[in-house]
Structures are given as C-alpha cells and as structure tokens.
C-alpha cells in the first residue's frame, strides 16, 4: 500500500490523527520545499483540529520556511 493509498484511506475513514502522521511523512519525503510545505500545512491543520501535540513542531517547521 503506497503512501498515497494510505492517505486516501485515512481521508475516507476520517482518521485525522493518521492524516497528521501521513502528511508529515509525505512532507519528509518531498524533494522540494514548496511541496514539503504543502504537506506540512495539511499535517498542521489536522493536528490543530484534533489538538494533536504534533501541532507545535509542525508550526515551527512551517515557520522556519516563512509559511505561517
């Protein structure tokens, strides 16, 4: 199962905690900053919504790129 498949499955099940982890993984694998920040944004938003402790670290990563 590819990362894309797992992302789609998490969306289908509304598993927002999984989406935080999967979008973070997608960001880590991205070759370009813009693509990484796109995925980091999604991870951050789902972390914010769910009160996930990862939100702070994700915010700092986006901040480091001037994206928040």
């Amino acid at each position, binding site marked *: 199962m590819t990362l894309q498949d797992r992302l789609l499955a998490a969306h289908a099940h509304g598993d927002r905690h999984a989406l935080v982890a999967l979008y973070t993984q997608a960001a880590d694998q991205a070759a370009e900053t813009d*693509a990484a920040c*796109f995925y980091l944004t999604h991870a951050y938003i789902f972390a914010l919504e769910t*009160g996930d402790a990862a939100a702070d670290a994700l915010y700092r990563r986006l901040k480091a790129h001037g*994206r928040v």
Partner: protein
Amino acid sequence: MVQDPLDAVRQPIETAKGLPNAHYIDPATFEQEKHAVLWANWTGLAVTADVPENGDAKPVTFLGMPLLLIRDRAGLVRVFENICRHRGMILVSEPKKIEGAIRCPYHSWCYATDGKLVSTPHVGGPGHNTHDAIDKTTLGLTEIRSHIWFDTVFINIDGTAAPFQQVHADLIARWAAFDQPMHHGGPDSRFALDLKTNWKLAVENYCESYHLPWVHPGLSSYSRLEDHYNIAEPGQYSGQGTLVYRQLSGDDGQTFPDFPGLSDNWITGGEYMAVYPNVLLGVQRDHAFVIVLEPQSLAATREHIHLYYATAQTDAALRAKNATRWRAVFEEDIFVVEGMQKGRHAPYFDGGRFSPAMDGPTHCFHDWVAAKIATHRRV
C-alpha cells in the same frame, strides 16, 4: 387620523385590548416583531447545560440564523455565528467536542474555541499560509452578545439592549436567594414540546394563574387558585406566585434537598416568571426550571424545558417522577395555546378584553411588546 391598534393595547387594563390578530398570523408583523422584540432585547437561546464541558459545541438555528453555542477552552460559554469568515460556510453541523480547533470543512480555515482565527491554509498559494491582505486578527468568528443568568444563555442579537444586569435588576434582586449553584437534572430532566402556536401565546398562558383550575385541575388540587398572586412589573416582567408550594415526595417519603439559605417565604411558596421576551422560569424550595421558547416560525414554537436541583446528585426515581409531573402539566396547556392560535384567524376578534383582577400579567406582557414595537418604529 387612523389610530394605531397598539394604542389600545397600551391603555390601562380596564379598557385595554390584547394584541391584534396580526401579531399572531401575519408574516409581515412577525418579521417586524422579530427585529423589535426578539433581536433588540435579551432573548433566551439555550442553557449552559447544553454544553457542559470545555470544548463542547452545539449548532443552534435561531429565527433562521445559524449560531454556535460553545464552551471555550477556558470554560466560558459564548455564542458565535456558525459560519466561516471566508466563504460563509457552516462550520459545525452537529453537536460535538472540539478537541483542538474548529476547522471549516470547506477550505480548512481554523478557529480557536474563543473565536480567534488561527490558521488560513494555502491562503497565499499552495504551502503559503499567510497573505498580506488577510489579517487574521480581524477575521475571528462573529460573536453574538450574550449573558448567562439562571443557567440560561440570553442573547442580544442587534447589540442595542442595555446591559442584562441593568434591564433585569429588579428580577435579579427579587430572586437573589436563588443566585446559587443549580444543577441540571441530566437527560431525564430535559424535554421539548412542539406547539403549533405563536411563541407569545405560550408566554401569555404561562404567566397567568386564571386558567389553573380549569386547565390543570390536578395541579389545583394541591395548588389552589386562591393561593396564587399576580406579578406584573410594567416594562419588565410578569408572572404568578403561589403562597403554598407542596413538595413532591417519593414512595418512601423522600424529597429533594432544598436550596440552602432560603427565607421562610421561599420554603412555603414558589414563583413562576416570564422573563421577556421568551424565557419562562420557575423557582421553588427544592427545584427550579427553565423554559426557553424557540420561535420556529409565525405559528410554530418549540418549548425547551429543563429541571434543576440544589445538589448534583438526586434520587433518580424522584427526578423522573418530577419530570413526568411537569411534562403532564405543560402538555395540558398545549390545546389552549394552539386553540388561541387558531382563534386569531377570526377576523372580528379585536384582541380580547382582560379581567382587571386576573389578567394583569398578560396585559403587562402585551404592553411591553407594544412598547418595543413602538420604539422600533421610531428608530
């Protein structure tokens, strides 16, 4: 010169007429009343027990307006428009616990439970979450002015009313003995009744005792008409009181614990008040209730009833018995408020005449409504 029919409403009770039919059956008058009466004053929306824990959020549609009742992270109960400041999308579509932030399901703008806009994903382009034109500090959720009293969430939609404590200073002082913790009885102590009537008829019926022996013969067997007194404070509130309140007891003779520190008059009596426009309250030594009338349309009203006790833990069987008793009483009123609504289609009905001895509380309410409409017309 054509005389305003509301002038007849504002006369002394001996010569006054009730509100004309249009106030119950005419859509244009309902629309005017919506602004003059329900938006311009402190109107009941809900009870804080609807959102008992921090983060609890409940969407409420009031007069067609999408509102969000929420207990924020700090425990403060507040009311917002339930829409995103971006595209006006509904934010919360069912009661839920907000674990972190309120995320708009459309473009995922996120709001804190205190209404602050905290994130605008991709607003500056993919992966760019800021834009110079989007100042988050000015785009928080739109808050509706609210005030909590008697566990009731009152809202002033147009923001023009004087402060709640000022408007209701007399009533707050009158019932100061009950300014103490009240505990909602829980799921078995809340119920709703759907009434095919204009909301005002439910107020009018509630605040007078004249009908008790005829409509509530069971209630009158232990709460007699002659034990009741009228309460009518012009421009403020009206209702009724009883000098004789008999406690409900269970199979083993158990009763609910009293609210602490009550004076003797509260041990023997009780009072039932219409807090204009749409909240009906009742206080007795051992329990209280809150009724919020939700005007759903011109001729449809949902009555939300909540029972409260002096302690967090009460006898479940006795609580159920009490809820059953009050439900029976309030259901006995349905045919009356629905019958009066039908009666408002009689073209020659002139608003009716009041009993100067018995209808003071109803006249007081009509006078208040007429005054609010007159004020609204002048503005």
